[in-house]
């Protein structure tokens, strides 16, 4: 039992659910502790856009009442959580991080809120993001920018920056994010936690506000690998509301974690992506953490080999061509006629234009311009990008004929200051280089804590992530390797000093 030794905020999702099921602690006590912690630390972080105290306490009482009746409790019984504010939630304002949806209160839960509630999780509220998922720093927002718990003048990453900061600061055990081009893994790396993007189609997108429909994939952000497996197990599987979910049974993800922790990695081959390491601008401290992570994997029994992804350098332009075009198409639905902000004009077109002009932020407008340019480009830029996407996916297929998993750092830098890059969007886009490939090929990928870049002049001590990519549906391999790495390190146990 941890209750006597550590505060509730230190407990993982697995530990909390076990304790609630056994009666060691009530869901109400856990929820009240989480709400108190949000009140204590979030004024410095701004990770939460909405805290539903009344709904959370009612849900917790419901879990406790079910236990008192002798009912079987779900795998996330009494575990406090939050959803990125692009997941639809019944009765709770859902903005997508945009002024254009402010005030929209959906009538029903989406797939994710519904599944998590059914598993016993207690939804505390909604978490900040870059507007509609467009960004890598959480600065693309009409609201207050989220701060990194490790250094309050640094960005938490994005677009799921609120989801990462809330977990890293221990206000909740886990959160959900969405990952279209690294938006779970990059903030997880910058905030020193675990972020898992499943195989495209493994988790439903129903109830997720669409950004890049052919790349969007929800997933968990957690403080350890076991929790990522636990939450994935609650979400994975076919959903008739999403035609692009895979009709295949979800394996036992927790067993894969146990296997990694207990039995190591003998027989596994991990490909080290050498083009990634040759990139200019890779921070030496990031490289040092990555080398240490490779040494830990080798010590656990894995064999390392060098692999090449010949079209790697085309991943960022391919991603931005496709993502901007699809975003421009998806965001066409926001016209002020149905939900959120509504400006009035002389006719529908003028009303719609006024609404979109007022409602969308600078980065969204940039992406709309770019996406529209891509779609009307007479040379066929959009279609060419889809063909390059095939080449990128084939590179991964070829690599996985030689190895079981690919490894690289998650980011080139351990982080950057608020405001440092916001005026250079192209430089911001190029920082996604390690993470967008997995989205383009539909592959599962994870970022796990891999150490810290030491404090140097002008930069505090900041976390660094190890990025692992697996073949399609090979989440068990991904979790096994991540768990083996975690078992030999203690990075995931450190608490950010800004919120300790």
């Amino acid at each position, binding site marked *: 039992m941890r209750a006597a030794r550590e505060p509730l905020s230190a407990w993982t999702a697995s530990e909390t659910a076990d304790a609630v099921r056994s009666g060691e602690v009530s869901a109400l006590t856990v929820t009240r502790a989480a709400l108190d912690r949000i009140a204590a630390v979030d004024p410095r972080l701004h990770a939460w856009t909405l805290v539903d105290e009344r709904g959370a306490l009612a849900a917790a009482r419901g879990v406790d009442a079910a236990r008192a009746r002798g009912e079987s409790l779900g795998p996330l019984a009494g575990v406090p959580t939050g959803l990125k504010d692009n997941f639809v939630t019944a009765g709770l304002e859902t903005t997508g991080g945009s002024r254009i949806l402010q005030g929209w209160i959906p009538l029903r839960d989406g797939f994710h809120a519904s599944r998590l509630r059914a598993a016993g999780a207690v939804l505390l509220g909604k978490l900040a993001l870059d507007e509609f998922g467009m960004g890598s720093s959480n600065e693309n927002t009409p609201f207050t920018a989220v701060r990194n718990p490790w250094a309050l003048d640094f960005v938490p990453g994005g677009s799921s920056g609120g989801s990462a900061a809330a977990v890293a600061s221990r206000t909740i055990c886990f959160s959900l994010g969405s990952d279209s081009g690294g938006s779970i893994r990059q903030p997880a790396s910058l905030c020193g936690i675990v972020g898992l993007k499943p195989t495209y189609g493994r988790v439903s997108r129903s109830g997720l506000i669409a950004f890049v429909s052919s790349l969007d994939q929800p997933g968990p952000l957690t403080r350890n690998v076991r929790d990522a497996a636990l939450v994935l197990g609650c979400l994975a599987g076919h959903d008739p509301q999403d*035609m692009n979910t895979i009709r295949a049974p979800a394996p036992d993800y927790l067993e894969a974690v146990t296997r990694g922790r207990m039995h190591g990695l003998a027989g596994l081959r991990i490909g080290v992506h050498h083009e990634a390491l040759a990139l200019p601008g890779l921070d030496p401290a990031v490289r040092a953490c990555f080398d240490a992570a490779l040494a830990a994997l080798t010590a656990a029994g894995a064999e390392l080999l060098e692999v090449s992804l010949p079209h790697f350098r085309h991943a960022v332009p391919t991603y931005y061509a496709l993502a901007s075009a699809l975003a421009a198409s998806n965001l066409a639905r926001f016209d002020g006629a149905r939900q959120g902000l509504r400006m009035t004009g002389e006719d529908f077109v003028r009303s719609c234009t006024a609404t*979109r*002009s007022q409602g969308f932020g600078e980065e969204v407008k940039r992406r709309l*311009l*770019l996406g529209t340019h891509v779609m*009307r480009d007479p040379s066929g830029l959009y279609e060419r990008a*889809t063909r390059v996407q095939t080449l990128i996916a084939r590179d991964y297929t070829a690599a996985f004929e030689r190895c079981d998993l690919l490894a690289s750092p998650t980011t080139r830098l351990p982080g950057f200051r608020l405001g440092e890059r916001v005026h250079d969007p192209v430089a911001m886009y190029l920082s996604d280089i390690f993470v967008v490939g997995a989205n383009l090929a539909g592959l599962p990928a994870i970022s796990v804590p891999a150490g810290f870049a030491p404090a140097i002049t002008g930069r505090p001590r900041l976390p660094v992530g190890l990025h692992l990519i697996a073949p399609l549906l090979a989440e068990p391999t991904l979790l096994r390797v991540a768990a083996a790495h975690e078992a030999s390190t203690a990075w995931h146990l450190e608490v950010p000093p800004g919120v300790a």
Partner: protein
Amino acid sequence: MAVITDADIEALAHLCRVELDAEGVARGRSYLGAIVGLLETLEAVDTSGIPPFVAAELVAALHDPPGPTALREDTPGPRVPAAAVPS
């Protein structure tokens, strides 16, 4: 490299249904000029004989047992009469 003009930005903004003031047009031109240069690097990639990537086909290949994609044939259907479209 394609040259992006103010007129290009104004035309794109009109299609996107967003209004830009003179400063917004200038910022849009600067941004698009920079990012389009990056996207045009894709022209150097030999894509002859390479099919487009289709996410729905990836998902269909992973069904157990394998199943068809959820996509219908991309063929034109009957036109909707203008009178039936809400104004």
